[in-house]
């Protein structure tokens, strides 16, 4: 199996207010098409780990590989490009640009990547919305749709550049069980049908149980 994401000896310290060793020697891999979840108690460092893996947090020790390419120590511009092209994000809070329409929100990362024409991007965006069954709200403003819809729009946005991995920070944390199941099914489908890797931080035991693999964390270490 091809390795998509690999972390080697990741250590992270918080220096304020007092020196605190958050992540202690983290080693793990995510393979292609794998649906992994990270679980652990609050404060065990799972979100911190996710933001390091996402390339947004660069203040750590150790090496991080994406598609067997070393990412640690790259220029900020290059990291932005990697996030844009290879990584899709879904957050607990929906984080859409509220002044733009749903369609524009979904199109934005692709416009930034600028590998396709606007017409193609729009076609792809509508396609993604259709897969997620929210095609009908494409023209609405992002601030005018419901929470469940927002989360699906965020997923569509994460998918627009056909990334190699999708990362989620409690993507269902704010949703009721029905919407939560909905999001899980979408993720499951993506990993099975399109061979997409997924790495999701969650508190929801039911959600985690249904994933391929659970990475349990405690006190800054991977327990299993």
């Amino acid at each position, binding site marked *: 199996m091809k390795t998509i994401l690999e972390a080697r000896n990741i250590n992270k310290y918080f220096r304020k207010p007092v020196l605190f060793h958050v992540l202690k020697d983290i080693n793990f891999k995510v393979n292609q098409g794998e649906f992994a979840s990270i679980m652990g108690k609050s404060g065990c460092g799972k*979100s911190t780990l996710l*933001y390091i893996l*996402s390339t*947004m*947090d660069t203040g750590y020790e150790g090496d991080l590989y994406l598609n067997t390419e070393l990412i640690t120590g790259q220029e*900020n*511009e290059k990291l*932005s*490009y990697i*996030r*844009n*092209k290879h990584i899709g*994000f879904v*957050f*607990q*809070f929906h*984080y*859409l*640009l509220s*002044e*733009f329409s749903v369609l524009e929100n979904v199109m*934005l*990362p692709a*416009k*930034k*990547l*600028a590998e396709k024409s606007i017409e193609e991007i729009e076609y792809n965006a509508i396609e993604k919305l259709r897969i997620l069954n929210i095609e009908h709200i494409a023209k609405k403003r992002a601030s005018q749709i419901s929470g469940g819809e927002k989360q699906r729009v965020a997923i569509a*946005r994460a998918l627009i550049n056909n990334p190699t991995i999708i990362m989620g*920070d409690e993507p269902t944390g704010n949703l009721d069980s029905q919407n939560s199941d909905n999001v899980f099914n979408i993720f499951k489908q993506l990993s099975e049908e399109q061979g997409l890797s997924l790495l999701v931080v969650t508190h929801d035991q039911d959600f985690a149980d249904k994933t391929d693999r659970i990475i349990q964390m405690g006190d800054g270490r991977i327990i299993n």
Partner: protein
Amino acid sequence: MVNKKVILNIAKTHLVTKIKQTATAALGVTFGIGSYITLVCFMTGLNGMLDDLILNQTPHIHIFNEIEPSKKQPTDLYFEFQNTLNIVHSIKPKQSQKRIHNALPIINYLNKDPKVKGAIPQIKEQIFYIAGSIELGGNLTGIDILQEVELFNFKDYVVKGSPQALKNNDNGILLGAGVAEKMSLDIGDRVQVSTIKGDVFPLKIVGLYQSGIADIDNIQSFANVKTVQRILGQAENYITDINVKLFNIEDAIPLAQKIEQQFQLKAIDIKTANAQFETGTTIRNLITYAVSITLLIVAGFGIYNILNMMIYEKMNDIAILKAIGFSGKDVQFIFMSQAMIIGAVGGSLGLLIGFGLSHLIGSLPFETEALPTISTYPINHNPWFYIIGFSFAMISTFLAGYLPSKKAKKIDPVRIIRGQ
């Protein structure tokens, strides 16, 4: 390029959805630029008018025979006193004539110089205006009227009658408005003038002259060169002054020096004669720019403030944009372009408002006894003011946008996303 378009589109959406804030910021610039344009057009217009008032009728070089003592007294020349200290008391001016020797050939010579627009003769003479038993002191200047009109805008100062009428009448006089008022005279009347020697001549008033400077209007009158020569009983080559107008005023100083050396006459250039006007102009310009810059700085702080607030409001958006692959530079560009759009829109509006306001001022009636040629407030519409104003708007908004946008560039998305 596509990237820039996407970023500009985001900037535009932010501005449009926060239209009130945008408008407030832009209005700050509009107000600043508008008042700059109004102020500078009005002030320089006024400056120009005041300068013209004096400079237009002043020759660039004025050539005459100065009455002064000899620089070298005879004792200095005597070889036996060479190594002694000579003190001469009560030195008197040298006995010399008022007329310029060989004036007509000098005028011809000057007129051939390519730098010279025109050199014209004048005869200045002190006379008395006689009204019954009262004698009023005054100056009568003999002029070549048509050339004066052409070179020194003389026509502007003839408030009644016409320069042509003087040309056509050998016994005509253009009487100073102040003199005419004192003596209750008007066009068509006769005035008697007496020379210092006591000869009395009647002259016909063909027009009234008003320079706007009361001290001059109360004494000065003009007649043809020939008329004055006849009154004085002098020949046709009797000329006391030569006035020179140049194509380029900057040539005045070197040419004046050259004439002094070449003809041993006194030649005063316009810069020496009117140095205080340049100083006044410079100081008024300084005040204009100081006020304008203050206004623009205030507008700049307005923009700075509003962009800062916008960035605080848009923290989430900035974090999302960074998370989905926009770099710090892209984010900075969003806020910079917002500042520049505000600057460009506000600045253009300011130019329009400034144009309108200065036009309005320029159409207000402004009539004063002192300035016969002016009927409305003077306005100077120099295109440079508009170019400077617009550049200033862009530069100040650039500076005002730079710091906040730099902050936006540095925002750590992780902190924002985790902070909620």
